[in-house]
């Protein structure tokens, strides 16, 4: 792969929450355009925290380190600015927004990003056309667009809605936080199809997952194993297969042997 400027560089990132509990203990990670990185690791290892901190979610203290996104340290940037600059997070638990119509929410989101990039808001017809095209990818029921955002949606419908947003916003960097959890095989295929459709040699993906199965549909460049807030091992796709068969204990053992 040609070495371009990295899209995202995380340098020695230390993060804690209230009461000084440390969650991330010096993360170093570089993601180039077009790459797919997979973050795996046991429960509570800090995978979701990493995705949340990158997207600017309040409630975390960044003790030290840098997050360089598109050449700029974004540690103090508001979440909406990061989003408008092309950072996207597919939520593990997408929020319900009672009374906010899905269509209206999607349009507001697309327009906010467009305006930031000095593009005009989409006319209703233009937006509907775009929506029609993208919702076909994730096989989203049109009825859902008339309902309140995620309210009364099944688990699968919520995740599809996340991928629909991914396809609509077409960000430069997408984080998927356990989007594959709790999905049946059909839904998983649809989600994978959406991610594949979105992914190109310009934009990158960081996939947080517990399971190897979604990787059958995608071609990740790197697998990273996160344990106790640190990336303890990185490798290619074969690492995920090895993890699947041997479990995280195997990693823990190899680390302790080394040290």
């Amino acid at each position: 792969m040609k070495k371009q400027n990295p899209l995202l560089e995380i340098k020695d990132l230390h993060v804690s929450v209230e009461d000084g509990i440390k969650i991330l203990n010096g993360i170093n990670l570089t993601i180039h355009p077009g790459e797919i990185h997979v973050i795996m690791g046991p429960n509570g290892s800090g995978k979701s925290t990493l995705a949340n901190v990158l997207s600017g979610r309040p409630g975390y203290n960044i003790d030290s380190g840098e997050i360089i996104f598109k050449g700029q340290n974004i540690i103090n940037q508001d979440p909406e600015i990061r989003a408008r600059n092309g950072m996207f997070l597919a939520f593990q638990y997408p929020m319900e927004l009672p009374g906010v119509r899905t269509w209206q929410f999607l349009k507001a989101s697309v327009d906010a990003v467009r305006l930031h990039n000095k593009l005009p808001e989409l006319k209703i017809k233009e937006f509907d056309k775009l929506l029609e095209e993208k919702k076909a990818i994730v096989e989203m029921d049109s009825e859902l667009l008339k309902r309140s955002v995620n309210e009364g949606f099944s688990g699968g419908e919520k995740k599809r809605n996340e991928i629909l947003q991914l396809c609509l916003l077409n960000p430069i960097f997408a984080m998927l936080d356990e989007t594959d959890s709790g999905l049946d095989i059909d839904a998983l295929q649809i989600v994978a199809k959406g991610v594949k459709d979105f992914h190109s040699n310009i934009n990158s993906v960081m996939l947080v997952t517990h399971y190897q199965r979604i990787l059958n549909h995608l071609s990740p460049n790197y697998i990273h194993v996160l344990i106790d807030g640190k990336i303890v091992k990185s490798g290619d796709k074969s690492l995920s297969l090895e993890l699947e068969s041997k479990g995280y204990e195997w990693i823990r053992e190899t680390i302790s042997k080394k040290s």
Partner: protein
Amino acid sequence: MANQKIISRKTKLENDQYKWGFELDIDSETAPKGINPDIIKFISKKKNEPEWMYEWRMKAYDHWIKKEDNEPSWANIKYPKINYQDIIYYAAPKSSDSAPKSLDEVDPELITAFNKLGIPLEEQKKLTGVAIDAVLDSVSVATTYKDMLKKAGVIFCSMSEAIQEHPDLIKKYLGSVVPYSDNFFATLNSAAFTDGSFVYVPPNVRCPIELMTYFRINQEGSGQFERTLIIADEGSYVSYLEGCTAPMRKTNQLHAAVVELVALKNAEIKYSTLQNWYPGNKDGEGGVYNFVTKRGICKGNNSKISWTQVETGSAITWKYPSVILQGDNSVGEFYSVALVNNFQQADTGTKMIHIGKNTKSTIIAKGISAGKAQNTYRGQVKVLPTAKNAKNFTQCDSLLIGDQCGAHTIPYIEVNNPTAQMGHEATTSKVNDDQLFYLQQRGISLEEANYMIINGFCRGIFKELPFEFAMEASQLLKVSLEGTVG
């Protein structure tokens, strides 16, 4: 005002109450401050009212003066004592001396004022087919679409005109729902009301357009006491919209209106309000005291009255649009959004009085509190022994923004018939940080995110409003919420 000439006279009230050396200059456009029999006479004279109307006013005045210390104190609102002798009870806008017959004759400045409110009168007239009766200070300045309504047989005019032209209807219905002795503010209104709107829809007529009134208080130091009466005769339907606004003033202004609705057999009245009186500044100075009595009666069987209100203005709101469900199978509805910010106080809700059989009422009240504001829902559902199979459903939702505001829910339920079915649901919530973050992560600013969530909270109410009004209501919320986040 420049051409104001007032010769004041010290009246010995006890002796001279009904003897009128009328010495206020009838040509003056503004009454002197205060309320006394002279002022009542002045208002009545100014409006060329028949004797019976004047007597009705005086009956109310006598009642009010006897009970002057009966100002209600039970509501969850605090304000300094109002000096009722320091208020101007009649102020006509400059251009009202010869009442305009069409919009063209209305002072262009008034049109500009409406345009500033986002209510282009001209455009509304053309595009939406809304008939507008604009009450500025105290006098009705323009009623449009009269001809179309005339063809349908619908009467839509100012109260002053109705007193002249339709005395039989006024005599029969004025005070029939809210009697002059009803409460302190309604009594004051009965004595001193200056104008308002009148609607009569004849039997089996569906009013072809939405009727609309805009109220505005202009004059500093003046109160506004308008009176509205809507009668839907058998089998008829009417939808009526009311918008209110007042410019910014350092002093408090009193608004004490009375609205009466009468729905006869099989008739339906839909009454929507967008209340945006000046709420006072960030420190709680100024603003309108909105002490309003609104009540409807479902007089005939199968009749229906529906109140929808979006209340974002006023320093203090005290108002309980109610329905008396007298006819069998009659239906009463109350949909409300009350938003308070800074130092605003609202004590608002409804009363549903079930008298007839199979009567049904629905109450959906959404309260939003921000800043240091206090919001109280107060509702009464009363089922009389005659009201067999009465049904009520009440839902009160409160949303809090920040940690210095308050939300209170005070429902009174009184059931005197064992066949009644009552349902009451209440929730209190805060705007959830996770919801805000979700929206922000999609590129939406924090302020916009807040607005979207609050707008969503109110959606059930907004959908009860006619389309243009719903858009305006949504816009109002946005303006009222400015500066509540961040």
